[in-house]
């Protein structure tokens, strides 16, 4: 559907050609010089691998109970649903009572809330955040727009089906879902985890090729290695 007459205007280089991502020599203030290859320094290329559960059932059950009762949410508001996360932390709804807490860095979080529509640009960041989280990890899609596009079904910049790109454990429908719905959703997620169903990270590792192909079909300027931890 390219217009014949339209000649694209020049853009700054995108993708792996970007200036910051090129190899360069750095001179430290003390006069030492060393090579920096940002791609290798910032990311790790290894593909993820599936992790075994404990062999003893009761241990695994105990661990699952712990995981369910201590959900640490990554404090990343990807869309407008983030505005209903704030009341959850405050007196009216107080999700801390249920073992739900917020962490500022993906390393320490277990639960990624996709709060609403994901634009392509945010999807890239969400994938990175997800991959930096530690196994086992869970994804909850919040709002109709993560399920089937919702209100933005014909938008050129929002994805329509989140589970094509990330392994989703639970969807909470609504536009936007009320805090009560979120609390009920968390309780459902706990049930899933306690029953041993929260294996999204292993699913991601096992179907890694498929997820990557889907992600790359949407993100046009893929400027990072396939997996970053």
């Amino acid at each position, binding site marked *: 559907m390219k217009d014949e007459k339209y000649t694209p205007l020049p853009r700054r280089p995108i993708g792996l050609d970007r200036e910051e991502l090129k190899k360069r020599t750095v001179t430290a203030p003390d006069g030492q010089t060393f090579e920096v290859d940002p791609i290798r320094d910032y990311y790790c290329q290894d593909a993820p691998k599936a992790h075994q559960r404990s062999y003893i059932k009761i241990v695994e059950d105990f661990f699952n109970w712990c995981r369910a009762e201590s959900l640490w949410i990554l404090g990343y508001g990807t869309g407008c649903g983030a505005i209903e996360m704030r009341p959850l932390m405050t007196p009216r709804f107080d999700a801390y009572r249920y073992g739900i807490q917020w962490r500022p860095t993906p390393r320490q979080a277990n639960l990624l809330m996709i709060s609403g529509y994901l634009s392509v640009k945010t999807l890239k960041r969400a994938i990175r955040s997800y991959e930096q989280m530690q196994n086992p990890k869970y994804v909850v899609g919040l709002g109709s727009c993560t399920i089937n596009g919702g209100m933005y079904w014909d*938008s050129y910049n929002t994805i329509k089906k989140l589970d094509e790109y990330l392994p989703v454990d639970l969807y909470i429908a609504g536009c936007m879902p009320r805090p009560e719905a979120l609390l009920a959703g968390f309780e459902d997620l706990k049930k899933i985890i306690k029953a041993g169903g929260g294996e999204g990270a292993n699913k991601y590792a096992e179907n890694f090729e498929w997820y990557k192909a889907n992600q790359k079909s949407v993100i046009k300027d893929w400027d990072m290695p396939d997996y970053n931890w």
Partner: protein
Amino acid sequence: MFKIEPDRSQYPAHNPDGSCDIDLSSGKYVKIWHGPNHPGITGNMSLELTICGDEVVEGRTRVGYLHRGFEKLMERRTFIQVFPIVCRVCVPEPDLNEYCYAAAIEELAGIEVPDYANWMRTLILEMGRFNSYMMYLGGQSGSLGMGVIGQWTTYVRDLMLDRFEELTGARVYHMFILPGGVRDVLPDGFAARMEETLKTAERYLDDVDKVMFQNAVFNKRTRGVGYIDPALFDSYGVTGPTARAGGATTDVRRDAPYLKYDELDFEPVTGTDSDIWARADVRRRDTRLSIDLIRQILVKMQKPGEYFAKIPNVLHWKIPYGETYIRGESSRGEYGYYLVTDGTGYPRRINVRGPSYTHAMALLERLIVNTNISDVGALMVSLHTYPPEIER
């Protein structure tokens, strides 16, 4: 005593276009990304900071994480279909979008809105402004590590959301102001319950005054930080409380009264210092003003009457060629809708002018240079930016 001023003479010079040549390979500078996944950022946006020690040498705002292509989607929808998506442009204060859109349509289609509907709209807008300020107060104190204020203000906001729910049936996206009027009248006993909410809010605001504005550490962190020269207001398109904190008296509610603001009794709140503290102070007093206005509106509102004008069959609603611009005063500054129609059943172009568009881009990039990295969060929150209205 112990004044530590960094040696700024070593920093790279700024080119005339505002950029500066930073040699990353010298090892003196570090480039860090503030956001989008960062708790100190308002919403989903990011700052690309080049720092030297603890000081920011260059800052770049990166937006677009929330882009849904609203302006394109609106062109594909009929006039009534646009109405449910306009409120999604700005999450914390969606009502102003509804008003601006409805007013623009009414102006081009020549629809006269009933008086009662105008009062209702004024009420909704003030309630929305109050909510937005509550978010702000929590965010500003939170950005300096005082989480308890955020707890209180979010609680008060929840109380106000209850009133919203009672009135419109929804907590966040109300979709109450539609072209032609509003959806409903006030429920029974609304004024009394609102009075109760406002009383609670005032009690909490007194506490906020004591804990936040009289706090020595808060004063130390915010006084004199993030100063905006009033001479820059026009060239950087600074409006709203941010401008009023620097002594300008720009308030759309007073300058170009819309709805029923000319029948209400109020004076724009202004400050003098134009720093973070002054901006917080202006917003705190503006919250009080909002409470006062809600009370005035509830008194001056007449008995429920006609609340919806007759509009044409929405399936065949065509609006002749025209263009207009409708503005309103949001809690961040001047908010406006530029609407062009071309005689068909679809809008030709809708452009949303959000105040954050100018505040968070050109202005923030300028202010952020030579600030301490600790102040970046507080500075950004003090401009009260909501990223969705930048990228839409």
